[in-house]
């Protein structure tokens, strides 16, 4: 598992308002304004990065404030930090990667 | 906009006990409730998560009102609400029973210091509460330049769960 302080600082170089938040024992990185390119368009959404396994069957996951229609498979709804989030099924993106690469990998199915 | 305030019963009792402690020259003790906020379908929910008492040494004598809290007390309160950003609610008690009312001194001084909370903590509403032994009244500011609005619901979470408390 990577050092969360170092990884968070690296993310904040790209998204200055990225912050680490807790829900129970689980920690997530909130990215309030993430530009996502999908289907030739760019959308501004909020995203929640889960950079390590938390018992949901995935080593890492990226949740979005809205779904991307026609992209990604098996979208599911979640409630985390009191808000609704959405995630699709997407492979095994290792928690050993730098967080910025984890995000990039999770954005691939939406391209 | 409907604003509801929730507090744990144990914390409320602790706050009441703290505010009733005598002070060497201040007639009324004050403190600060720290709250998180959330939007709801009809307004805002304020959830009290902490209480910051004002230390004995942070009261200053004042000729017109007897005592007031000094800048150190304000600084400590703002520090407690700065990161992560939280709502600050100045609180004191008038004792007795029934729905308490703010005195004119309460309102005049609040108009001066509450808007100041928005400069270090701009994204949260701030306000003040006055308690009696079985009830409460509250005001909150949405923005520093606006007039305050009334907190409509007071909910105690604990045994028993009480909405618009009378206990």
């Amino acid at each position, binding site marked *: 598992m990577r050092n969360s302080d170092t990884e968070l600082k690296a993310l904040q170089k790209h998204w200055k308002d990225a912050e680490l938040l807790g829900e*129970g*024992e689980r920690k997530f990185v909130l990215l*309030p304004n993430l530009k996502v390119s999908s289907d030739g368009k760019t959308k501004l959404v909020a995203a929640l990065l889960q950079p390590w396994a938390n018992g949901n069957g995935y080593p890492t996951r990226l949740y979005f404030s809205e779904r991307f229609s026609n992209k990604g498979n098996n979208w599911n709804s979640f409630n985390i930090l009191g808000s609704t989030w959405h995630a699709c099924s997407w492979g095994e993106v290792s928690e050993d990667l730098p967080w910025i690469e984890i995000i990039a990998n999770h954005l691939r199915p939406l391209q | 906009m409907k604003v509801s305030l929730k507090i744990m019963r144990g914390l409320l009792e602790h706050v009441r006990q703290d505010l009733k402690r005598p002070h060497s020259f201040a007639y009324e003790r004050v403190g600060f409730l720290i709250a998180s906020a959330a*939007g709801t379908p009809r307004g805002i929910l304020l*959830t009290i*998560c902490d209480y910051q008492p004002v230390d004995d040494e942070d009261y200053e004598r004042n000729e017109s009102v007897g005592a007031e809290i000094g800048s150190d007390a304000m600084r400590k309160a703002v520090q407690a609400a700065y990161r992560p950003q939280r709502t600050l609610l100045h609180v004191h008690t008038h004792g007795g029973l029934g729905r308490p009312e703010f005195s004119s001194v309460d309102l005049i001084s609040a108009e001066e210091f509450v808007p100041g909370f928005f400069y270090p903590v701009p994204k949260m509403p701030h306000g003040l509460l006055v308690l009696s032994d079985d009830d409460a009244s509250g005001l909150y500011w949405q923005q520093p330049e606006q007039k305050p609005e009334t907190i409509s619901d007071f909910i105690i979470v604990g045994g*028993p769960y009480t909405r618009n408390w009378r206990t």
Partner: protein
Amino acid sequence: MSWLDRQSFLGNDSDETLAALTVGIVGLGGGGSHVAQQLAHVGVGNFVLLDPDIITDTNLNRLVGATFSDIQAGTYKVDIAQRVIVGVNPNAKIEKRISLWQDAAELLKECDVIIGGVDKIRAKHELDAFSRRFMIPYIDMGMDVTDTGGNNYLISGQVILTGPGEPCLQCLGIVNEGLLKEEAQTYGDAGSKPQVVWPNGLLASTAVGLFMQLVTPWAGRPRTSAFLEYDGNRNSIVEAAALSFFKTRQCSHYMIRDVGDPRFDMRKLLAKEQDVQTPNQKLPQSWWNRFIRWCSSQRD
């Protein structure tokens, strides 16, 4: 005379108290449908009903209020619950959504108590976390039928009352990482779990009883937590030993300070309200402006 006169022992203002409360019921199946019916009978005035499903024939063995005609009509479970509630109390106010609770969670924020009749571990886990975040007491129900071999079965279940500062579903072993992972790996499809009406009724009644102890003073000392285990073979409901153990320790899974919405911003809320109140200039003029122009034209 009031239809609630026989329950005046619940407390002097109990009718008004119950009428003013809002209860969220997540899952209107075998357990939730019972709860909805009972809460209507005791006079709860406001409901939030969340369930995505329509009734099917295999629900009819236990879904209270459902009829054969509902199966033919493909009635939604929330609509059945609404019908049952207003049939008892026409003054009850109901907010309902045909959706997963996660997609309608906003509606639960104003609830005084949330009662969960959900099967999935992830749903229970997220409801527990959500309830704590908004300081809402949460009552969770669960029922199981286990094949013990030799054509014998064990009917079991539990009802848990939890809330801020109390042992959570993880403390009490109802939710753990292993169960969440196992559920995720089967894509949450538990198949057709055996379910029957009488244990559901018992568990639902227990849940409603805990709700009443939380909000009315009839029992003397109010309850803020409970973990009641049901043995359907012995016909017993007893307090689980785990609760008294965990009540002496602080919940290690949730922090008291982790409440509210970390994304809340008053400025954005006000900007959104402003957008609603002063919409696009190209919208049709208000009736008031049309009236003023008509007055002017009359004068001219």
